[in-house]
């Protein structure tokens, strides 16, 4: 009976070999995939129990981890949740790193990023607990605070950029939320808060400044149309355009009026500069038809439309529609039909004009420091594109100054500072309800700050609010806080 016993031993050998192979497969070959799998509680705890890096504005933390006595070891705290919720995002044990920088720079904050390799190595050697990198932001706390206070309870968003560098000085979205409610260690309360936030029809988790449903830009888009006109070489600021009381959309019976039904010019021949100043609908609808779809798309793209952008949160690309008929083309001239923009993109248009026609890539993180406070990454301003020539930029600036001095944007004016701007009142839906826009920069001849503000319509139908009335004061507060005098 010994031969079959030996053969059986071979069977046993094969069985154990299978186990060794399967173990190798799981613990070596597949291990990384399994570790990174969504919902892997071990990875969550592992990341959560690390000293996560802080997020700082002007050296003061707006998010930091504090040691606790419980199993999770660290509690993530947000010091100014009402101001910075959409900048920081949240870091929850249950829901992981969500939104904002918590999500976009998770690996740096958690300390797992490749750039922290040498620090991790030295942590292992010295036996120090692993810790993440901290982020110093480009945010100007005064501008951010001004935007938050000026927006108040209104839904909307505000973005401020330094046009010379692309530094993001403010990024606000309303309504907001309290990330502390999600980072809490009372997990049942976290669940309740999360469900409440995700089910809230006001969508407080959406960062309206860079993501979410894009907004129709309304008359702020006239800047793009005017830029395309000037760049074409066939128009000067004083070129007269066709702009009557109404404009009949080509191929239709529909007539497009000016805002409030007013005339743009006594002779119905407003110049390009006048059209920008009073935000003339009829002349811009006509102008869009003259310039054509391709020219407008090219100009839009030169300002950054359609191109992905990470600041490091990703910004939804703005849209200039295609395959337009003539009526639709005319409507895009006043920022209607299917033109869609983020407030970030609107701010980038102003910033490009302010910066002599050159768009700087917006960024939010100024410096990355490891736990020894050594700077391991420092942001360099980067040119993104040339949107318009410096001459066009200067001409647009002049027109925008007129808007604030004597046109539709007078409530953005600051004493002693030249402000350039453009208002917008963007209809959406069929009920006539409209969002209020303002974008601009200051000081006009030496720009330090460019802003874009949108205040969403308070009601589902036309409440009589214009960009000049509702959005311009918010922009004014931000410019006031951002301009050095």
């Amino acid at each position, binding site marked *: 009976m010994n031969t079959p016993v030996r053969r059986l031993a071979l069977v046993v050998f094969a069985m154990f070999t299978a186990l060794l192979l*399967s173990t190798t497969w799981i613990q070596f070959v597949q291990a990384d995939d399994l570790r990174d799998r969504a919902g892997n509680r071990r990875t969550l705890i592992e990341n959560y129990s690390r000293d996560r890096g802080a997020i700082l504005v002007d050296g003061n933390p707006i998010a930091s981890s504090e040691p606790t006595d419980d199993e999770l070891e660290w509690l993530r705290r947000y010091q100014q949740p009402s101001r910075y919720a959409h900048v920081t995002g949240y870091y929850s044990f249950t829901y992981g790193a969500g939104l904002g920088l918590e999500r976009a720079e998770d690996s740096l904050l958690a300390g797992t990023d490749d750039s922290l390799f040498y620090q991790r190595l030295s942590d292992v050697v010295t036996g120090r607990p692993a810790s993440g990198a901290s982020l110093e932001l480009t945010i100007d706390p005064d501008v951010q605070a001004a935007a938050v206070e000026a927006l108040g309870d209104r839904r909307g968003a505000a973005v401020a950029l330094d046009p010379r560098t692309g530094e993001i000085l403010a990024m606000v979205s309303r309504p907001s939320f309290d990330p502390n409610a999600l980072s809490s260690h009372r997990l049942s309360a976290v669940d309740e808060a999360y469900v409440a936030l995700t089910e809230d029809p006001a969508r407080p988790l959406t960062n309206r400044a860079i993501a979410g449903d894009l907004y129709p830009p309304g008359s702020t888009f006239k800047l793009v149309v005017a830029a395309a006109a000037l760049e074409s070489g066939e128009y000067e600021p004083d070129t007269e355009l066709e702009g009557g009381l109404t404009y009949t959309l080509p191929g239709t019976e529909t007539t497009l009026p000016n805002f409030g039904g007013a005339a743009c010019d006594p002779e119905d021949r407003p110049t390009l500069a006048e059209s920008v100043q009073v935000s003339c609908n009829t002349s811009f609808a006509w102008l869009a038809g003259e310039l054509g779809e391709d020219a407008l798309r090219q100009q839009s793209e030169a300002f950054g439309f359609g191109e992905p952008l990470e600041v490091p949160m990703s910004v939804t690309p703005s849209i200039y529609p295609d395959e337009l008929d003539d009526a639709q083309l005319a409507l895009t001239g006043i920022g209607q039909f299917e033109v869609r923009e983020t407030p970030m993109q609107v701010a980038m248009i102003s910033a490009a004009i302010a910066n002599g026609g050159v768009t700087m890539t917006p960024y939010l993180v100024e410096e990355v420091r490891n736990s020894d406070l050594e700077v391991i990454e420092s942001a360099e301003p980067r040119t993104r594109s040339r949107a318009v020539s410096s001459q066009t930029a200067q001409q647009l600036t002049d027109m925008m100054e007129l808007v604030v001095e004597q046109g539709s944007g007078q409530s953005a004016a600051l004493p002693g500072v030249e402000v350039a701007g453009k208002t917008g009142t963007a209809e959406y839906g069929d009920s006539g309800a409209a969002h209020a826009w303002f974008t601009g920069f200051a000081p006009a001849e030496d720009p330090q700050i460019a802003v874009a503000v949108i205040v969403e319509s308070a009601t589902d139908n036309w409440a009589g609010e214009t960009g000049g009335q509702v959005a311009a004061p918010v922009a004014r507060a931000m410019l006031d806080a951002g301009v050095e005098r």
Partner: protein
Amino acid sequence: MSTTTPTPSTVTSLAVRSGRTIEMLLLVLAVGIVTLAYVAVNLTVTGELPADVWWHVGIYSALAAGLHVVLRLRARYADPLLLPLATLLNGLGLVMIHRIDLVPGQLGTSGVASRQLLWTGLAMAMAAAVLVLLRDHRVLRRYTYIAMALGFVLLLLPMLPFIGETVNGSRLWIRIGPFSFQPGELAKIAVAVFFAGYLVSTRDALSLVGRRVLGLQLPRARDLGPILVAWSLSVLILVLQRDLGSSLLFFGLFVAMLYVATERTSWIVIGLALFASGAVLAWRLFSHVQSRVTLWLDPFAPDQSDQVAKGLMGLAHGGIFGAGLGNGYPYITYYANSDYIVASFGEELGMVGLFALLMLYALLVERGLRTAIGSRDGFGKLLAVGLSFTVALQVFVIVGGITRVIPLTGLTTPFLSAGGSSLLANWIIVALLLRISDAARRPISERRQDPSIDAAERAEAPR
């Protein structure tokens, strides 16, 4: 975690050395490893050494030493590796169970380790009793049919009302007052004794008579009886107790022993065919079998249990070298101290640690099979094969289930899993193997003479 060094003495100097000194040294090594692991777990998880640590180490050392002394007195020539291997595995199991106990506020499992230590003491005492009372394993052959009856009774015990208990959908447990017990664990020993006794008497009929078809020696129809009985028994377990693992274990045990007894490959082919048809049938009939198969193919299948997935993530977390004892999160996986204890080891000791554990098992099985080869009587040979193979098969079924070689079926991991019945059964298996190996390695000059048994053996020889 290298634990055992091969002993060059086992075969060559069999007549000269008993191997007891080597056993003692290996036992010191085994208890030493367990002690280090125990201390490491306490220091890592709680940061301190409770006073009773040394008590526990002392008790465990005393138990191992006691068994060693029993071997010196009653089974001088027993295999010197079996006891240290079982001691090491049992000790590591205790450490891991204690480690899961230490998790604050999780599962409410604290106290499992002390209960397991109690069971360990009982099981090792039982092993000593077997060695003391059973002077010659051949005596068991007299109880072949009593063993069969006992096996049936033990297997069917959980089906009785009042004392039978369903746990996680399988009806494997009996509960009397505060004590619960899994009689199936002991049943496998009784069944192995029965198979060995039965097959040693009928092997000639089973192997020699029959027709050849396609190169296979097919048995006569009436000789098919026993294998059909064994098959229906395992199907019965499957249907009545809804326990895939035990069913597979019993049937595999029978086919392996039948093959060794008859040296006929046809039995394996027939056995595998019967098993395959049974498995397909079970898959078609039972939803819990279907979900096991689904999870085997895709552990992350939606709307299914995430037990397999959690085990895999635990193993992945351990990676090659493991998180370190006390540094992982094994308690996230369900049954981290019983069915899934191997995943807990994989998480904290890594692939390297699991390899070492598997090697310990492989070595244990190898010593058992070597005992079978060295055994001079057919009954001892078959019993040793059967007992060793159950250990191998059980490890394969549970570890293979966790690591997705086969669909997961609930089985205890020998010596490691929390649970008294399993410990008791496995220590008795080790005691029986020790007893058989003692007879196998005993020099002729010291061979024990038992006229009645020898006569029975002679009477059977000419058949």
